């Protein structure tokens, strides 16, 4: 680590940091103006053939994952690492410095200083002032030198590490992001009600990923506010392993299901023109769920029931009511309107039947596994702590030199702070007055 090495000096410089941050800020704008991840034809149509070629070469269509943008982030990381390695030893020295070895001549020249005289020997005075400083949290050290007694106390020496904690936190966030993208995946699945999947497709490569378990969509429903805005998208999911039901959990936006490190988020839905009809015999307790295409007669052979959805009322893609035809055995079919999601009781020869009918939906799930997310959150916490330390805490040092003056004690108080000097000036003044009055 030769500090004269020009390459080292380049990577350790703040100029490079300012340059990299500036270039990152400016180039980041591109991806907010040019739509991302569109097919090549879209760019050719929108911007012309030449621009489309440039977009292709520079990978603008996915610029935040492009070679040059990642290279900029790499440059920022290199800069952060080398700058920190370059500067940290000096900071460490400041934290661990033996401040009692500070020459008295230098203390006499410090910017913040005051001197006064008190009665009594220097030993008595030193003991008294040391106790005073101790009670104010300065933890004074003491040394006899140059014919007098030197007291030194400091606060917030560790605050000098604040800025390095922030730098490190950015690297931790990057590590978490890389970890997550190498070991995790982001994908989606569209599961129709009553159906199940044991794999999903990733968004970027459309690769199929085996979940290691099965997820079934038991039901999906939408609720609306009176003004027509969507209120709730809700799916009930069941996790199965080896055909055995493990857990059944309702999910909605902002309340996902996590199982074995894989999280399922409610993200979209699709309405079908088929219907989901559940029939229950009150007498025998027998129950069966059918997926019924529109206007197609369906048979429940065991109970000798025939039924169909003959008509439907819909607003857009959403069915609000359906007309059901229902017959048991060879009887005349009854027909009636049923609100979507409603249940009707129907009389049969051998007892009543319950009929529950609704439009068939598929739930659109976003499926993600990101083992790096906790590293990222740890980095974020570090950053906030580091920022607070770097901005609001300072390393404050005070020296008291006590000299004999014909049996009385001459006291010299001096101090310095590495940040917030106006604040230090005030507290120095208060300290001086307290010590003078003690």
């Amino acid at each position, binding site marked *: 680590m030769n500090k004269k090495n020009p390459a080292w000096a380049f990577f350790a410089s*703040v100029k490079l*940091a*300012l340059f990299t*941050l*500036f270039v*990152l*800020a400016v180039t*980041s*704008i591109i*991806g*907010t*103006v040019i*739509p*991302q991840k569109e097919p090549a034809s879209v760019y050719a149509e929108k911007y012309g053939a030449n621009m489309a070629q440039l977009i292709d070469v520079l990978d603008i269509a996915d610029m*935040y994952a492009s070679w040059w943008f990642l290279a900029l982030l790499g440059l920022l990381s290199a800069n952060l690492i080398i700058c920190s390695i370059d500067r940290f030893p000096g900071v460490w020295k400041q934290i661990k410095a033996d401040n009692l070895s500070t020459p008295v001549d230098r203390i006499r020249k410090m910017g913040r200083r005051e001197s006064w005289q008190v009665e009594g020997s220097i030993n008595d005075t030193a003991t008294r002032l040391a106790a005073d400083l101790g009670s104010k949290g300065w933890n004074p050290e003491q040394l006899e030198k140059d014919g007098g007694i030197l007291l030194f106390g400091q606060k917030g020496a560790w605050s000098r590490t604040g800025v390095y904690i922030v730098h490190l936190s950015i690297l931790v966030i990057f590590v978490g*992001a890389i970890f997550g993208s190498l070991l995790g995946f*982001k994908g989606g699945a569209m599961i129709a009600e009553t159906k199940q999947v044991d794999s999903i497709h990733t968004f970027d490569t459309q690769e199929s990923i085996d979940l290691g378990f099965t997820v079934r969509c038991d039901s999906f429903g939408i609720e609306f*506010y009176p*003004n027509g*805005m*969507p*209120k*709730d*998208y809700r799916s009930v999911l069941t996790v199965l392993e080896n055909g055995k039901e493990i857990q059944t959990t309702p999910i*909605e*936006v*902002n309340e*996902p299901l996590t199982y074995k490190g894989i*999280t399922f*988020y*409610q*993200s979209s839905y699709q309405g079908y023109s088929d219907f989901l009809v559940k029939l229950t015999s009150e007498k025998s307790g027998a129950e069966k769920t059918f997926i019924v295409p529109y206007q197609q007669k369906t048979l429940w052979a065991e109970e000798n029931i025939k039924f169909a959805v003959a008509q439907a009322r819909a607003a857009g893609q959403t069915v609000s009511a359906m007309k059901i035809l229902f017959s048991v055995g060879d009887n005349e079919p009854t027909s009636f309107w049923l609100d979507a999601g409603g249940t009707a009781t129907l009389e049969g020869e051998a007892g009543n039947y319950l009929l529950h009918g609704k439009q068939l939906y598929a739930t659109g799930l*976003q*499926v*993600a596994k*990101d083992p790096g*997310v906790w590293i*990222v*959150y740890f980095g*974020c916490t570090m*950053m*906030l702590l580091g*920022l*607070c330390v770097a*901005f609001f805490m300072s390393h404050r040092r005070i020296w008291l030199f006590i000299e004999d003056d014909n049996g009385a004690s001459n006291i010299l108080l001096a101090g310095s702070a590495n940040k917030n000097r*106006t604040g230090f000036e005030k507290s120095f003044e208060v300290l001086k007055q307290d010590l003078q009055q003690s």
Partner: protein
Amino acid sequence: MDSSQLLGITTFTYLFSTILYAVIFIFRAKKLGTATTIFTLVAFLIQTAGLALRWQESYQMGIGHAPLTNMYESVVFFAWTIILIYLLIEWKFKTKIIGAFAVPFAFLAMAYASNSGINTEINPLIPALQSNWLIAHVVTCFIGYAAFAIAAGLGFMYLIKNMSASRQTTDDSTLIGSLPSLKVIDDITHKTMVFGFLWLSLGIISGAVWANSAWGTYWSWDPKETWSLITWFIYAITLHARYTRGWGGVRIAWLSIVGFVSVIFTYYGVNFLLSGLHSYGSS
């Protein structure tokens, strides 16, 4: 009395407050100082009551949620945080001149909220916004935005003072002379930016955590996210230039204004000019 009346009154009280601070500055009417502060505080309390009432009204409508969910509500809240932070600065730094450069932002925000024709109704929350992260995310972001607004006002103040012949004076004999010394303006600008930077960081992080719990991605480079990061970069550059390269004065004053332009674009421009996931604010 309903919340829209109280918030309507707020627009006028902030206008009057702006005029009072301008009078203090232009006519060096120091005697008005205490009255102006009290008036502004009362205006702030009226707005606070307006926001609280709007919150309560949403519960009466059966769709209870914090009043932080669309462009109108966010602009009103922006004005609220500007006044809150301004009053704290006035109290901490014991100067009322900054009011003439900070309070107008709150008035402009309220005037925009009431007169631009944006939807002022209380609407129910769409599923994506039904989260406890909503309040944490919006509040942290807007404290940051408001601090940056005031920092820009201070930067503007610095540039005016610096251009004038009486840039070195701090007496009341001239208009510009009555402004705090360049060193003091520079110091307060810097401290306000530092404060804003911390809250912007919190805002971005809370947004990332929320996005992860709603969509499974803490960062997706959507235009709003990207612009908040661009803003973060600009202030990071400013702070580094100051700490390590000793930048101050005019350069920092200009950067405080550039930074605020980026804030406004992040907040407002993205919603109306670009498309993305984060489109709740534009309705």
